[in-house]
């Protein structure tokens, strides 16, 4: 058995430190080792995006990156985006606009959408569809996901304007 590696991560603001085999995938670390089960496994080939997390500001599919590759980095999952007392506008918009059905893709979808809106706070529909194309949903046909992201963008921009 290969030597275990010493890995340090910051996940959702909390420092984590553990020994893991080099082959341990980040999604396994999150779900099995740290009990962070928001990110899901849908394909294990980086096609579906159910496992999407944010690593040092970039959207990453956690099923095809080793925990060791995330060593020293900051990881954000859906659990770090918002909870009952501080819902993210995207979380609220997905509910308001029926942007989910079975819910399995939703954590990855919302996690990806947070980055999309950071990179482009005023996306067109086409930009949303292109920017979300790495995340597959089998239930909604995307129409209401697009609507949800548009609504969240509007709300976030209005809040930003009000703050300025």
């Amino acid at each position, binding site marked *: *058995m290969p030597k275990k590696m010493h890995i340090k991560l910051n996940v959702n603001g909390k420092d984590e430190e553990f020994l893991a*085999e080099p*082959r*341990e995938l980040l999604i*396994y670390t999150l*779900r*099995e080792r740290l*009990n*962070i*089960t*928001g*990110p*899901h*496994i*849908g*394909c*294990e*080939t980086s*096609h*579906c995006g*159910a496992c999407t997390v944010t690593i040092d500001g970039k959207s990453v599919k956690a099923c095809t990156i080793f925990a060791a590759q995330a060593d020293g980095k900051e990881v954000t999952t*859906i*659990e770090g985006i*918002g*909870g*009952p007392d501080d*819902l993210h506008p995207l*979380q*609220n918009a*997905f*509910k*308001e606009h*029926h942007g*989910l*059905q*079975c*819910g*399995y*893709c*939703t*954590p990855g979808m*919302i996690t990806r959408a947070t980055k999309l809106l950071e990179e482009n706070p005023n996306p067109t529909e086409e930009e*949303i*569809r*292109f920017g*979300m*194309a*790495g*995340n*597959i*949903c*089998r*239930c*909604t*046909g*995307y*129409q*209401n*996901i*697009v609507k949800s992201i548009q609504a969240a963008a509007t709300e976030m921009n209005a809040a930003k304007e009000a703050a300025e």
Partner: protein
Amino acid sequence: MKDEVTREERVDNLKGMGCSRKRVEDARFTQGKGNYVDDVKLDGMIFGDFVRSPYAHARIKSIDTAAALEVPGVLAVLTAADLEPLGLHWMPTLAGDKQMVLADGKVLFQGQEVAFVVAEDRYAAADGIEAVEVEYEELPVLVDPFEALKSDVVLREDLVAEDGSIPDGAHGPRKHANHIFTWEAGDKDPTEEVIANADIVAEEEMYYHRTHPCPLETCGCVASMDKVNGKLTLWGTFQAPHAIRTIVSLISGLEEHNIRVISPDIGGGFGNKVGAYPGYVCSVVASIVTGKPVKWIEDRMDNLMTTAFARDYWMKGKISATKEGKITGLHCHVTADHGGFDACADPTKFPAGFMNICTGSYDIPTAYLEVDGVYTNKAPGGVSYRCSFRVTEAVYFIERMIEVLAIKLDMDAAELRRINFIKKEQFPYTAALGWEYDSGDYHTAWDKALKAVDYEGLRAEQAQRVEDFKAGKTRKLMGIGLSFFTEIVGAGPVKNCDILGLGMFDSCEIRIHPTGSAIARLGTISQGQGHATTFAQILASEIGLPADSITIEEGDTDTAPYGLGTYGSRSTPVAGAATAMAGRKIRAKAQMIAAYLLEVHDNDVEFDVDRFVVKGAPEKFKTMKEIAFAAYNQAIPGIEPGLEAVSYYDPPNMTYPFGAYVCVMDIDVDTGVPEIRRFYALDDCGTRINPMIIEGQVHGGLTEALAVALGQEIAYDDMGNCKTGTLMDFFLPTAWEVPNYETDYTVTPSPHHPIGAKGVGESPHVGGVPCFSNAVQDAFRPFGNTHTNMPHDHWRIWKAANELGLHG
């Protein structure tokens, strides 16, 4: 007492039927707090995974597990030899056949389960799988069902007698060792006679390719045998948890009361999670053997290659008509590829599902259907992928035959449909193949749809486009896809629908709490349909308590009443009806309590939104909330305390949702890329419970239809290798490929359903597939195309254009 709140406000406050109530499920899903089967964690839990066959047909000469057992973390390796003493090396299928749990001497499809490795974690299980040595002897492979029916190669030696004769199967006589059944509906001779003597006959052969439901969450389970109490708990991705409990009891010998099956949140089903799979059996056995909870979760390749394919129907049709276009007869023969085991998930008496709805929405006086089921070296399954049993195949068949007939008649396909629709006044209508359609108003829906899209304008634009194409001004053709579908859902009446002998009723149990809130439990299980939201709406309207005060629970066989589960759009037609009926029982008791409290006769009070009022004196009333409390604190003569009800609903008939769809598509003949310009979908699902959820279901179903029509398939090479085992090869549309849809509706309530609802989840898939396909075919109609097979991926569209000489 003066009522400050208006009646309208009281209605709104209930959030009952007809309002777009936001989903109560969404809070947990949007915050990553869903509880799917892979999120279930138990102390000491271990993991199982399969050694799978690389061959499609091979004899197993030996299995050596010694090296695997030396791998650190590996605890056990099960083979058929280990399961045989328990009688569990084979299991019954839902179709009356049996299926190997682990390869018993041979394998019949690539990916078949050969051994089950149990280990401390998933990595150790994977290491163990690598170390199991299996020696195979390859056998000739049959992937073509027509060839299989002629071949000397016997796939299922277990189904051939020692003298070489072929015993009957579960559905009657078999013609060949690789033949499973022949199933017929309608009148053969009269149909052939009508067709032989008809003015016009159109014939077509079409292949409805093999595909897969592919929910985003794969199948899996956690089995936990508590040896101290003798109780087995089984969590899993089960669309029919109660049926799974019964099956587990029957095959394991454990008494049913000692088995608790739990379907937690399910990440989409679409038919994939109806069946019983070897992984479930092996997990249960492994838990019994090790005394530890065992988790098994498919990876995507396991899922696509082994559990629950859909379709794979080779259909041959003849349709006859008068010169004026009135259809006189329909003949359909299907060669159905069922793979290595017949594990189709259909009601017992319907081995080809409801394929005999294939006369569609048309008044066809004479018809005949014959289906031959065939074994091949492909994965077993044959589930209904987002449709009621084989209805997608049936609707595709008739909607293509209509188009082919229109070409033969040189007639507009919209008009041909119109003159053949079953008329509103003909309902209830008994079709030539036996079904009694409960209700419909097809002409109104069709006219509304054609008007909405300006059908005549579209045809004029298309004609101009053809001219421009011929003149070299454009390389894009325009297709107008039409489809009009009638579904048959809500299986079903116990008199003709059962699965493994279990009647296909469904159930609801309601408890009203003293303070006027409630819990209702049902025999179904949501996989994204939003039952917790919509069933509460039905109840709110029926019992006058706010939907927000009603918890809906499903999926735990220890607490929920028995039901046959969620598939075939049966939840609303059957469990929804049970919910309404149970609600009415609550109301009946509430009426007696109200009358007692108001000191009048039972018949002198009437229900009004959220209360019972004294007839003619609306200022005298008791709200349902007050009545609920009284049920628990008053000693009422002749009435038991409490306020509970249960209903087991056996529907008198299926329901028949219908719809009219139009797709406008541009096709680049040089790249084969289709661009969907417009998609209009009118659905009539009877009474509408939650318009927001209906629209969401339509968007999703249309997108799955787009996938199937335009690229998604499970394909094999001649060696039986599955070529589409990952999402690299298996097409799932992304946001980039999917258009915006326009939704519309008419409302024709079901006359026999307590609230008139018909079900909607599958309609868009059933109607959508022929609509997308017809759009592609229609684009090429001016150049001599009558039919090309799906899936219409870019390559096949390019090829169709090429074969029509459009590349110069």
